[in-house]
């Protein structure tokens, strides 16, 4: 089993911490993990990507090959379309809906969201709204971890433990709000998948 994820977002959105949560859970389940990251200049408000590879056997390449990603997990809608060539024909795009329009020729948001909805397997998540409802506006990446969770080859409970471990230091309330955000994302994915 190999499960390749291409994570996408804009520098500063927390792509690496989202990847880290999933990677930690995969390791806890005894999977092999490689996580290729972007550091340096690109992190300054530019397009950022991480390649996360999970497998039950040793992993060779740090990079996901073209056409092999089971999932594109994006924190920003435009970024969810940037790496589509990486996606396997039956792969899923899971993306937050709120645009971060810091470039001049950013497409009109309705056009963009419609384009995403036309993809064969797309889960569009109002991550910002759900994070707000969970009482922690900055927890959008936890909503997205939740939205990705039902599709991953990892038990959801293991990912929850990974979320707990990450925020445990910050107190019970922060942990609970992050978990609430995580579960809200999970719910969206579950309902979208049924359609």
């Amino acid at each position, binding site marked *: 089993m190999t499960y390749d994820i291409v994570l996408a977002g804009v520098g500063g959105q927390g792509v690496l911490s989202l990847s880290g949560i999933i990677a930690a859970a995969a390791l806890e389940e005894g999977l092999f993990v490689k996580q290729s990251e972007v550091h340096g200049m690109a992190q300054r408000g530019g397009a950022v990507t991480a390649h996360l590879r999970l497998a039950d056997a040793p992993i060779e390449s740090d*990079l996901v090959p073209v056409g092999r990603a089971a999932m594109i997990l994006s924190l920003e809608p435009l970024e969810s379309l940037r790496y589509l060539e990486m996606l396997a024909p039956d792969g899923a795009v899971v993306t937050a809906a709120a645009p971060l329009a810091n470039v001049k020729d950013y497409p009109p948001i309705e056009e963009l969201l419609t384009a995403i909805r036309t993809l064969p397997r797309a889960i569009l998540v109002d991550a910002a709204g759900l994070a707000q409802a969970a009482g922690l506006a900055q927890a959008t990446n936890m909503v997205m971890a939740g939205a990705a969770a039902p599709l991953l080859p990892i038990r959801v409970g293991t990912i929850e433990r990974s979320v707990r471990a990450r925020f445990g230091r910050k107190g019970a309330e922060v942990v609970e709000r992050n978990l609430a955000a995580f579960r809200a994302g999970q719910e969206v994915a579950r309902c979208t998948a049924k359609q």
Partner: protein
Amino acid sequence: MSARVLLGDEAVALGALHAGITSAYAYPGTPSTEILEYILQRGGADAYGGDAPVAAWTANEKTAFEQALGVSMAGRRALVAMKHVGLNVAADPFVNSALLAISGGLVLAVADDPGMHSSQNEQDSRLLADFARVICLEPRNQQEAYEMTREAFELSERFGTPVMVRLVTRLAHSRAVVRAGEPEAQRPIAHPEDSRDWILLPANARRRWRTLLERQPAFHAFTGTTPHNELQIAPGPLGVITAGIARNYLRENVADLAEAPSHLHVGAYPIPAALVRRLVERLETVLILEDGYPYVERAVRGLIPPRVAVIGRESGHLPPDGELTPDTVREALGLPLRCSGPIAPINVPDRPPQLCAGCPHTDSFHALERALAGLPRGIVTSDIGCYTLAALPPLSAIDSCVCMGASIGMAKGASDAGVRPAVAVIGDSTFLHSGVTPLMDAVAADTDMTVIILDNEVVGMTGAQPTLLPSSRLPALLLGLGVNPDHCVVLDAHPRRTTENAARVRREIEHRGLSVVVAARVCVEAARSRKRMHKETVGTS
């Protein structure tokens, strides 16, 4: 044995800590920065007996290398880390160090950036190891990054030369599980047996150079037998030589080939010539897969009979530039590309990096733009750092970016050539790295030019490392260099002061001689993380 998840950079750092280094030195530079950061954070926890090594950011890569050399001269182990272009700065001590009788293990970890993710070129450090005539180890994964770094210290001591460990961005910045061994203790001080081996007067240098040349067969004997260079002969007509992480891309695809190729993996240089010759004995074609320059490819052409076709980056079978990917390697192996998902239903515009919201550099560039308004077209040279992003719209404020410190020398040259105004824009850390010496030239000639030092108190681009000299001491340094006190100005780079700053910069541009303007305000990212750390400290006390 303990298992942990580490970046390639961090695996190098842990390897060095477990090898019992006494010191580690580096100048921050993507993709190498995390090597020293790890040692700074984990030195005490991971070193033998909690005996943390000295770990320090340095003024530049040359001073880093020279400090490591001093540690080695004292018989103790030292690591020096830098990015590929940093090795140009450190090339003088590096190349000369190969002639010394290295006693304490001296390891240079250098991270190349094929694809130029965060660099101005994609030069290949393996050629510099060759140039210096020393051994280079090239790990293919995080585990090897750990093991090879440890081994590099032993090799350095066994052969009495420095050893290079070469990484590329993809390994430096990728995480995987690393199984670590037991740490070793630091070495005691041991003075050189013969000080002439460290004094490169021509008479000594000639003797030491012969010693280095006489060692080359021993280097070849090592690379011909080390398990890092692994030969597997298969019956078919195709052979592949991989170097470093290229092996992973081969293995990612090899199962799809009709028959497995013969394979030589190179993880240790000098290139194992005998293994190359054995590989090609019955081959028709050998494909070379390597990240960086066609270094192995060129060498192999000179080692084997012309009946064997050597294909790779130089022959056009792989792209001559950029980093390898599992896909470019797949194509070079003659395999069809895998089917991929849908094509983007709309046009996806590029999203280049940009200066952060509230960045003080933006305000400095606005002030400069206004100061230059209405003047004839001059030149604004710039330098390496976040502020290079001012090259992009909407600022489009600079005319050059070449190498650390170049802005000042280039502005002087432009001024000497008759261009006015001639302005150099350089960050505080870049100024300390390589801007002080060209400023001496400008002071000596009182060149008609204006230097603007963007002082944000940190090394911004690489993650807000501290600069060596606190901002408050910059003016004293400038005056000490002989900058005219009437034209040495410190401005507050705040948006509410843009108008007055612009007026002051204009006056300095109009001054017919050298002016230095320090535009000071702390990096917004650094300010934010300082606040966060303060909050956490207060919260826990």
